């Protein structure tokens, strides 16, 4: 019963990811929103096991989401999405705990065993991404701020900063890549 629900959820993710890779931005948005509570619950569990306060979970969730985004070309669209996602989740959790100087006890099932019902749905802010954001070049920061925080479209952002839409896209992608690199090397 529970297994069937997890299975159904994971099949749905795979379908959404296939649509996303085919260019469906809305499917991608839905997918990321759907996986986030599961990642959050797993990150909390991992932190708890390492004796760390669970309030750092959101930093880890955001790092996982960035890695998922920037490495999604390594996902094989013939393969199920969940094992790929959970492998990235585990790697990022291990990195995060290691950075905090903890001995690593990441249970392989921290991610895979998270059930749909038990994951809190709320969004939360995290300090690390926000802190690194301020270290980005002005243009990348403006674009990210506009699209993420002010929820402006690429088109509106282009108009606001007198940039071409192509330049906005480039700045957005470079900003996300730079954020990820800063988080990794911090």
């Amino acid at each position, binding site marked *: 019963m529970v297994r069937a629900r997890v299975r159904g959820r994971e099949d749905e993710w795979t379908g959404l990811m296939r649509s996303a890779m085919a*260019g469906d931005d809305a499917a*991608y948005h839905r997918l990321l929103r759907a996986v986030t509570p599961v990642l959050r619950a797993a990150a909390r569990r991992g932190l708890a096991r390492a004796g760390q306060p669970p309030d750092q979970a959101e930093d880890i969730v955001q790092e996982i989401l960035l890695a998922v985004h920037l490495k999604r*070309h*390594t996902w094989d669209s013939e393969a199920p999405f969940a094992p790929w996602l959970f*492998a990235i989740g585990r790697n990022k959790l291990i990195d995060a705990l290691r950075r905090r100087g903890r001995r690593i006890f990441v249970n392989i099932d921290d991610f895979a065993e998270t059930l749909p019902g038990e994951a809190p749905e709320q969004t939360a802010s995290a300090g690390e991404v926000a802190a690194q954001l301020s270290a980005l070049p002005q243009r990348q920061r403006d674009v*990210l701020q506009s*699209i993420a925080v002010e929820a402006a479209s690429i088109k509106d952002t282009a108009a606001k900063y007198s940039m071409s839409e192509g330049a906005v*896209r480039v700045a957005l992608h470079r900003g996300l890549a730079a954020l990820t690199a800063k988080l990794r090397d911090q």
Partner: protein
Amino acid sequence: MDTDQLIRSLSADNAHRAPRVGAVLTMALLVAAPLSILIFATFLGVRPDVMSAMHNPFFDMKFAVTLSLAIPAIIVSLHMSRPEALLRGWGWLLLLPVGLLAVAIGSEAMMAPAMPMTMRLMGKNSRVCLSAIPAMSLPLLAGALFGLRHGAPSRPALAGALAGLVSAGLAATLYASHCTDDSPLFVATWYTIATALVTAVGALVGSKVLRY
């Protein structure tokens, strides 16, 4: 930035398409190869008796061994560049050159020896072999690591070691056309030591640069 906002910016970037790891790795190796070939052409060159050497099956066997290292190493490294990949079921591919060498050593042992075993093993070029293969590997290793950085390996040191095997296999293929020692015993000894060196460097550097 809260997580919903981050997700919004990621969705807005969905149109960005990155090339596959295989494409980036291929390009990087193609860019690096001329440097290794330049080292080869400057300091080594093809052995002068290559035309007659080609009739010697043990000369040809060297290329079979080095390519049976390089090509499977490329395949396994691409596989391991995916985060959920396991070595299980793929690792045996890396044993191909070992099997070929064993067969070659066996066949040589059954023939009337032209030279005593220790002479065949020590050869005349062991020192050149130990420096030339790592030297020609370096550009290719840099290329392979650059290509694999585009992936998301869960085991960066292992992925780096595989990059080392790729580059050592390709460099050894070049070197094999220079070296006049064709005995499989020589290859099994000195090529292996040189490959192990390059693989260790790959693992060390990979553990640093292949984290994502």
